[in-house]
């Protein structure tokens, strides 16, 4: 990096690329070239910065100016003003919505203040397509270190002592998993990286693979050395083309540098990695289903035991770890297990990456130490609820997690606490709901996902989730009966109790948690035929306020089904039996004469 005086880091994550960050890079290069600066200022496309709400992001190094919502047309200003004249482009700086001040760097931004980036340590810092940049940030030092200094058993001890647990959702101790796979005797073993990220709205793994692919490759090699495997496989969904292309580039470069392949760093240890593509089935994130899919079989889970550590890919011992879990490994090796285990809570060590989504100001990707409270995440990092609305619930753990309420805001986030509260860590989706969200509809939305993504192998998940969805649908339509609540609960519990894999064992969580914390909302739908949040269309009643109606006929003309009648200049009325509750009359009325209840 020494040749350049200045670097322009442009976010090259999928989100920012969708907002034309490619063109930003191109325009910046053009401008620099025009100004004769292309020798002294380098434009680098990096991985995700996490602050997707304000993307595309351009960061200027070394002064750390953090530009947000940059457009390709801003390239000229950035070069002429910031680089040539040394003046920050004010209009592109971040404005704190709470304090109403302009902030020019990450350190001053509440979004970043409480974050601690271990898994995401290189995302947004380095060019993921250049291995040298990874090496410059101590990349491949961990594998070098263990190959020369540690036995496989010692590495496993380090990982065990660090307290690292699986970030894919279940939280199984990673070191123990490695140890179990190591203990199984076999001529061939495999390291599998589970990159089948499938929670709606979650993109933790994608961002790591796009922003720092080498960290995962290095971790897989470390795992291979520890368990006695010479082959690594990355199971990645084919809908992640950018992650795939960066992984392929990274694998190619690592081979070139002798960091993958035969006799790595002269140690005699062989390890290579190939990609296996998934077709995007959520259930293939379950490790036995994932293995079946890799084998070319139908992607459906099978009963454990046998665990993959005993009988996995091609019936050989296989260690399956999630992307984020692996991304932590090199840092643990280099900084030591004591450093890692000093972060977090008693049983959950280190950090966790979350994808913040929903009704929150700062949508994006964050990494916080375990033990951070939901309140800190939502109000400080997340910047609070959008449009000044009231917080209602937060859903953690993806489609199979539960909804937590205001009462849980001060719960320190870790595996045990979330489970105890009726939700789960999951892979790190975090969806925030405000007062306008109907909790029955939310549960229905997640059930819809589980119905779609169930593999269909076991009957409780295949049929039970469908029946749950139908019950919820009837509730939102106002057609349910009071007994249906008991049925909803029993069915949810039986599905959890009898399903074959994690999908069915957790898919009723959104129902059970909302039923527990928002029962009155369910009752309102059933008994009063009302949706308190005003979200359930079928339960809305449109009527005309006699005292406001001037008989302009605008509503009658707008009504697509002819439900409104009335003479010109006389009060109109809505025939409820015809009304489809589309809201066209409400939108058209200039006299506030249409009442929605």
């Amino acid at each position, binding site marked *: 990096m020494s040749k350049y005086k200045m670097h322009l880091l442009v976010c090259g994550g999928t989100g920012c690329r969708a907002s034309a960050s490619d063109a930003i890079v191109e325009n910046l290069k053009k401008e620099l070239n025009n100004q004769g600066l292309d020798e002294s200022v380098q434009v680098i496309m990096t991985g995700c910065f996490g602050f997707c709400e304000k993307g595309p992001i351009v960061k200027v190094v070394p002064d750390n100016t953090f530009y947000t919502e940059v457009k390709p047309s801003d390239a000229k200003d950035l070069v002429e003003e910031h680089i040539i004249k040394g003046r920050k482009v004010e209009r592109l700086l971040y404005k704190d919505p709470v304090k109403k001040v302009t902030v020019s760097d990450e350190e001053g931004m509440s979004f970043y203040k409480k974050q601690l980036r271990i898994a995401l340590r290189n995302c947004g810092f380095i060019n993921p397509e250049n291995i040298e940049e990874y090496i410059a940030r101590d990349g491949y030092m961990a594998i070098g270190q263990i190959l020369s200094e540690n036995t496989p058993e010692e590495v496993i001890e380090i990982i065990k002592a660090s307290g690292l647990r699986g970030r894919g959702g279940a939280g199984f101790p990673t070191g123990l998993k490695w140890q179990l796979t190591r203990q199984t005797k076999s001529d061939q073993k495999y390291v599998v990286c589970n990159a089948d990220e499938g929670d709606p709205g979650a993109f933790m793994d994608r961002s790591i693979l796009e922003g720092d692919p080498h960290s995962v490759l290095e971790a897989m090699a470390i795992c291979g050395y520890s368990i006695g495997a010479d082959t690594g496989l990355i199971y990645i969904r084919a809908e992640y083309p950018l992650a795939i292309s960066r992984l392929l580039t990274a694998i190619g470069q690592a081979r070139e540098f002798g960091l993958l392949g035969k006799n790595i760093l002269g140690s005699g240890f062989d390890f290579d990695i190939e990609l296996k593509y998934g077709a995007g089935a959520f259930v293939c994130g379950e490790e036995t289903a994932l293995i079946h899919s890799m084998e070319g079989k139908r992607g459906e889970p099978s009963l454990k035991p046998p665990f993959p550590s005993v009988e996995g890919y091609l019936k050989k011992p296989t260690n399956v770890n999630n992307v984020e879990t692996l991304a932590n490994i090199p840092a643990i090796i280099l900084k030591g297990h004591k450093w890692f285990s000093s972060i977090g809570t008693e049983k959950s060590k280190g950090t966790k990456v979350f994808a913040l989504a929903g009704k929150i100001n700062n949508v994006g990707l964050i990494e916080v130490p375990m033990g951070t409270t939901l309140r800190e995440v939502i109000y400080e990092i997340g910047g609070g609820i959008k449009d000044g609305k009231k917080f209602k619930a937060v859903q953690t753990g993806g489609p199979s997690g539960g909804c937590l309420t205001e009462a849980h805001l001060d719960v320190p986030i870790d595996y045990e606490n979330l489970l105890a509260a009726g939700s789960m860590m999951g892979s790190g989706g975090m969806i925030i709901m405000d007062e306008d969200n109907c909790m029955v509809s939310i549960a229905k939305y997640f059930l819809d996902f589980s119905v779609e993504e169930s593999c269909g192998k076991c*009957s409780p998940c*295949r049929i039970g989730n469908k029946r749950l969805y139908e019950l919820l649908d009837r509730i939102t339509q106002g057609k349910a009966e009071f007994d249906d609540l008991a049925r909803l609960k029993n069915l949810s519990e039986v599905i959890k109790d*009898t399903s*074959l894999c994690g999908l069915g064992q957790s898919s009723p969580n959104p129902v059970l948690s909302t039923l527990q914390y928002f029962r009155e909302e369910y009752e309102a739908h059933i008994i009063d035929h009302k949706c308190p949040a005003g979200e359930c269309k079928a339960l809305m009643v449109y009527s005309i306020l006699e005292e406001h109606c001037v008989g302009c006929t605008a509503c009658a003309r707008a009504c697509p089904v002819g439900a409104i009648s009335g003479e010109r200049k006389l009060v109109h009325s809505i025939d409820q039996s015809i009304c489809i509750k589309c809201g066209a009359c409400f939108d058209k009325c200039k006299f506030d004469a249409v009442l929605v209840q």
Partner: protein
Amino acid sequence: MDLVKLNIDGKNIEVPKGITIHKAAKSIGIDIPVLCYMELKDLNIENKPGGCRICVVEVEGRRNLAPSCSTNVEEGMVIKTSSLRAMNARRTVLELILSDHPKDCLICAKSGNCDLQDMAIRLGVRKIPGQEFAEMSTYRLDTSPSIIRDMDKCILCRRCETMCNDFQTVGALSAVNRGFQAVIAPAFEMNLEHSSCTYCGQCVAVCPTGALTEVDHTPDVISTLNDPTKTVIVQTAPAVRAALGEEFGLAPGTLVTGKMVNALRRLGFNYVFDTDFAADLTIMEEGTEMLNRLTKFLNGDKDVKLPILTSCCPAWVNFFEHQFPEMQDIPSTARSPQQMFGSIAKTYFADKIGVKREDLVVVSIMPCLAKKYECQREEFSVDGNPDVDFSISTRELAHFIKEANINFMELENEDFDKPMGESSGAAVIFGTTGGVIEAATRTAYEIYTKKELPKIDFEELRGLDGIREATIDIDGFDLKIGIAHGLGNARKLLEDIKAGKSHYHAIEIMACPGGCIGGGGQPLHHGDSKILKARAKAIYKEDANKPIRKSHENPYILELYKEFLGEPMSEKAHHLLHTHYFDKSKKKFQI
């Protein structure tokens, strides 16, 4: 043997390590219901997807319930099979399955023989909560020449898949789609007819519900029997007589040959004949072909195709036409007994009784569903008139007998009609695995050596092992025989032949487990292989009781050659009793 101590429903027991909770419970008289689980012990077939979740039990310390069919016992386990939690879960799961299953039990082909119906009875389900607004998964009805797929009734037990893929290695059926739309179907949900299905019917034999059933030809047979212009004759396959009684409550393995003949006569068939007659004819042709090939081989002919493979099983013929089309010249060209019968009936016998071909209707009673397809093959017809008009299964015959108000149990024994009802014991054993090759050996030995067999029973060729072999000393020549039942086992032998590693001279192949006695058209054995063993025993008993036990000694066969065919493998025999095969591997991927 390592033992494990555990407690089931309050009883402390010690059971061998590695067995399932279900088996451990069974050993102390606790019968946990299972639905998707199926085990054919002697055939090494086990279907254990753990999918239906009916058999769940409570295991102390476990977060969720455990499927007892697929969870192994562990030291110190405390299990409750009938706790409130387990029973509620079992009932709820069954209600869920029923909520997505048609309720037309009264008119379902499987009514009375349905595992799901039995389960609903056992658990006393009286109501399915929410049924009135429950969406049902529905699929296109798929009718092939032999098998009907009504996937609305599929409960995803995967038994058919296990039979089709693991046991038969045919790969016609597998799970497709996901979630509520998940269903068992051929690839791309094409019709079974366009898949690599062999119509072996093993999927039908194990299907717990009415999702897979046979095409019922009984109505066609009934209308033919009532057509005064037609002479209707019937042939019955050897395995039928050893299983038909089960449909009338008799113990498996009860021979009902005489009652069956009587019943068929009462049903109105003009002549009641025996496929066994044609089985003897098959031995004459196939045995001669085998001897010819062997003689050429012994005379140093390098081009002769050995081993010779039997060709009487129609599912097996379909299998190699689909999967090994390049090996078409290895099986015997002899037609199956069903088709030999039809061919001779519509020529020799029609002439004999002076009935025109088109006025003679041949019906076959078969333990088999592939026979339905076989008799519809174009090459087995003359000017559009098939040699065998209709093939109905053992099960269909039983229904027919019941429908015709015949009290089967009280029927006197009667004998088959002559000439095509006369057969040897060698023909009877066609019905079980190893039987065809034993029958052929009896004849080949005596023709080749011109000596009488010292011992008629070749015990070494019998049994239920999937692949068996034996060496028979034929006057100093070691005849090496291979036997396979189940197409997966057949595949292994074929791969060896393909690789030039096969050391056999002759191989018998039957598609179904146990041979025809375990055919797809037989009374359902519900996974009990003791039933198959009993049927096999009955077949060998019938053989032992026959006065003539070698095909070449059947006087009516000898008369047939004398009067009509000339010699075995003569031109006329070739024309009427032999066939050729087709490459069907390219017929795939039609939707």
